[in-house]
């Protein structure tokens, strides 16, 4: 492998990891703070992608889709939390898995009903429909540069919110001891609603950004969900920082696995997960 090809594969892996981070960060927060195993997280990603397709087809603008779609999904997340998730806080994980898996089936049927089973393409925004030369012979789509940059911005913003704001402080406190936070007079219910809704919006945003790259198709949420769980486990449950590095690790090992060990590619992510757990049983940041 030449140096320029190696550099490009590095970029490919990082970009894939960053997009994965957007999905996994919401999953890890909801699991870490609310204590809820949310299988429907992948469905929010899928719904985001379908919304991007639907709105972009009507307005001709992906930006409009993000501006309308993300708040809409945050609202949907809030409603789902109030109606379905809230009654489960005091129940065990099995009940949560059953209910959120039920939500997956429900959202899949809704998608089938509203959009059908066809595969849809979403156009890359015209401003970004060019390619950036990498090294001498290679090119990289500008839209991938943009998504990577957007993901880094979101990650930086999340870091600021969690470390520097009162809301972030409560989230951190909630992650380590929810009962104590409640005893201190903070309305945990509102905190949980806001957090779940933010997680939903993040997953939907990831789906929207990914839509021009991946196309939009039924069942796209499930494959992302599995990888996101791997990221959450590698990173350590409830840790945004862990999710960030976990996602990069998954993206890179998947990319290089494909190039260097093609016959073994689909297993390599899980091999990496097993290796991390052997060394650090509670994940990178656990």
């Amino acid at each position, binding site marked *: 492998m030449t140096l320029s090809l190696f550099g490009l594969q590095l970029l490919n892996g990082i970009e894939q990891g960053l997009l994965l981070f957007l999905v996994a960060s919401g999953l890890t927060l909801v699991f870490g703070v609310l204590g809820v195993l949310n299988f429907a997280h992948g469905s929010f990603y899928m719904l985001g992608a379908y919304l991007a397709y639907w709105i972009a087809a009507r307005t001709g603008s992906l930006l409009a889709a993000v501006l309308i779609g993300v708040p809409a999904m945050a609202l949907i997340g809030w409603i789902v939390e109030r109606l379905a998730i809230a009654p489960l806080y005091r129940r065990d994980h099995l009940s949560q898995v059953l209910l959120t898996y039920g939500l997956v089936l429900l959202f899949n049927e809704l998608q089938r009903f509203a959009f059908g*089973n066809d595969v849809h*393409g979403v156009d890359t925004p015209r401003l970004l429909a060019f390619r950036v030369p990498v090294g001498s012979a290679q090119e990289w789509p500008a839209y991938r540069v943009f998504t990577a940059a957007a993901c880094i911005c979101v990650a930086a913003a999340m870091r600021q919110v969690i470390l520097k704001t009162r809301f972030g402080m409560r989230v951190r406190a909630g992650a380590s001891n929810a009962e104590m936070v409640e005893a201190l007079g903070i309305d945990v219910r509102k905190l949980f609603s806001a957090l779940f809704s933010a997680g939903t919006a993040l997953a939907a945003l990831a789906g929207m950004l990914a839509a021009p790259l991946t196309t939009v198709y039924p069942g796209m949420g499930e494959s992302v969900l599995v990888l996101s769980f791997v990221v959450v486990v590698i990173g350590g449950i409830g840790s945004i920082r862990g999710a960030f590095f976990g996602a990069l690790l998954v993206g890179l090992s998947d*990319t290089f696995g494909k190039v260097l060990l*093609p016959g073994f590619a*689909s297993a390599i992510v899980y091999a990496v997960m097993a290796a991390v757990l052997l060394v650090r049983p509670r994940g990178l940041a656990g």
Partner: protein
Amino acid sequence: MSLSRRTFLGATAASFAAGRAFGASKAKLRIGLLLPYSGTYAALGNNITDAMKLAARERDGKLAGREIEWVAVDDESDPGKAPANVNKLIAGEKVDILTGPVHSGVAMAMMQIVRQEKTLTIVTNAGAQAVTGQLCAPNVFRTSFSNWQTSNPCAEVMLKDGRKNVVLMFWNYSFGQESMAAFKEGFAKGGGKIVKEIAVPFPQTEFQANLSEIASIKPDAVFVFFAGAGAAKFVKDYADAGLRDKVPLYGSGFLTEGVLGAQGAAAEGIKTTLHYADSLDNAANRKFRDAFKKATGREADVYAVAGYDTVHALAAALEKVQGDTGAQKELIAALEQVRLDSPRGPFRFSKAHNPIQNVYVRQVKGGKETVLGIAQKDAEDPAFGCAMVAAK
């Protein structure tokens, strides 16, 4: 006009009598449909079914005078449930003729049973080589294609275009593997060279790493097998990586079939080979597409054609045996003689009971699949391992 009561009664009685006599000798023809009506392949199952019913209506709802009773089972494209579903149709519903499925895994399970039960079976989509190869059987016909037919002719097309050094990329499951094997066989014969083979685990759709690799290899062209959502994504990624204008893309027809809309401008210029194209310019195809559109409101496709031809082939053969499905030997002989003027062009069965059909070169131009010509005339699957071919 008013009917007198007497003539009315007389006519009714006569028709009743006729009906009974008819019913005694001509029971309804029970046709089993083992197709996916849910899941990823639901659209394919529905198109095959609707095209079969359309063909039946063109024959006034009767085959050789027998009315048709459709018995449909959703196979969910699940090979694990296939044995139970096949048994339900054969033993439970006692169908005279079994048709389907879409998924090759389901077809393999079906083959195991129908070879034992000797039910007359017509495969309406699944392209697995074994159906008319190693597992071929006198009572099994196929009206769709073999994987070999969709990709072997492309080798000649690429060599003619002067593409000698080629990278192969495909989903690593039986359909992809069989397509690639058929392509390599033809390509090596013509003096082409495979520079690299990239097998992508099915159904992964993250291709970026492999595309970077292709760009660094700089082959004359790339030949791929992907279908459905994966094909839509691959073609877009290929264009996004800047490869479309540098390294021409070829594939089996399923690369663009049904996903051209999702691929948009990224698909422009791609050449594929398949036994059908929506834009195929012949009278039978125009008539078929109009009728299908009128009946369903949807556009017909390659899957619908197989369903349509299944019923017309059956009708032609059943007429020769006066609709007697019990005379299976004669019915099979009659099917072997069937010649159809199909929407896809001339159609007949090979000794292994796979279609002998033209395979066309198609190219995407202006967002539409256009037919450039015939890649292989009367393409016949080599039917490796089929005992029926060796015997005759």
